[in-house]
């Protein structure tokens, strides 16, 4: 139980996927201009991350390892993620117009979100988590992504009203703000778990 808590807090704060591990930066800078869009993207990522982690964990444990085909993992994992995202998009479009309007445009973007593949690789190869640990780690990493994205969106909504030097307008000032945000997150590094 304690171990699971350590994994969760570690993934949300100490090793935040965006601000300390540098993953998922494209959506971090691309979708963080409005708070609403940022939180929608965050929830979509939590869902896809958790579901694809469970699927790939099962495939890795029961298919790739028994067949001694661990070297095929990259090709298999990326195909699983891509087709799962595609399936979810089709399912959502068929069954819920409201969800489709809210998440429709974010789902295709998630396929190339490196955070998803990274979590899957960490779960199976780097840490070799059990199924329960895999689920906890994926959900927590997703929550960490949501947290970073929402914080950044809050800052950028304010930055719209600010008046930075011309050359800094847009992406450069977003990078500098991200640097300050990352500096704050470095503080969690000292946490003893």
């Amino acid at each position, binding site marked *: 139980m304690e171990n699971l808590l350590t994994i969760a807090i570690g993934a949300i704060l100490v090793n935040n996927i965006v*601000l*300390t*591990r*540098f*993953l*998922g*930066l*494209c959506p971090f*800078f691309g979708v963080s201009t409005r708070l609403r869009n940022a939180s929608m993207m965050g929830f979509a990522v939590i869902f896809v991350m958790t579901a694809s982690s469970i699927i790939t964990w099962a495939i890795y444990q029961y298919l790739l390892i028994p067949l001694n085909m661990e*070297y*095929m993992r*990259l*090709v298999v994992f*990326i*195909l699983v993620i*891509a*087709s799962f995202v595609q399936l979810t998009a089709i399912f959502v479009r068929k069954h819920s117009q409201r969800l489709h309007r809210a998440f429709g445009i974010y789902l295709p973007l998630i*396929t*190339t*979100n*490196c955070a998803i*593949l*990274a979590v899957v*690789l*960490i779960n199976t190869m*780097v840490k070799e988590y059990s199924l329960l640990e895999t689920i906890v780690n994926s959900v927590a990493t997703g929550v960490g992504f949501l947290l970073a994205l929402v914080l950044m969106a809050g800052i950028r909504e304010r930055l719209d009203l600010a008046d930075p*030097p*011309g*050359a*800094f307008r847009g*992406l*450069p*000032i*977003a*990078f*500098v703000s*991200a*640097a*300050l945000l*990352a*500096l704050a*997150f*470095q503080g969690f590094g000292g946490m003893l778990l």
Partner: protein
Amino acid sequence: MRIQEFTKGIIKRNAVFSLALGLCPTLAVTIMVENALGMAFAVTFVLVLSNLIVSVIKGFVPPDVRIPCFIVVIASLVTVIEFIMRAYSPTLAEHLGIFLPLITVNCLILGRAEAFASRRPVADSILDSLGMSVGFGLALIMVSAIRELLGSGKIVIFGHEIVPTVLSSPAVAMTLAPGAFLTIGILLAIMRRFRVI
């Protein structure tokens, strides 16, 4: 076959600074110049070969399933370069860690396959990928040189001391996450100010 397909990717349409593609490795592995060189080499290998293969097979691939096909090509190439690096340069592979397999989802590579190689002749695609790789490598080396110099006070590449110790008390924050964001932010602003990009 036109030479500007090669030159455009180096500065004018630089992958990192102008197109904002492939940001994750640019920030993550640029702690040392050595890592940046390794990453640039790996990305060049994958980008050139994937552009070549995609450009060759573009006639046979049905348009509806082209993205999954491209991803499979890229993932296979990444698996190959991962094994090559593990075999010939284990320490470098260790340093690059998870970012080596993650080249698969580097949006620069899929972006070039989809936007360029899948609709242009083979020779143009190779030139385009070479130019993009050079631009990506230059960006990586620039960022990593600044970060290594300020963060550890000297630059060491594969055991050779390129720049001797210039800072006796380096700013460690530059090697951590904040330094990466700050370096790229300021570089971007400088480039915009002088209209380089």
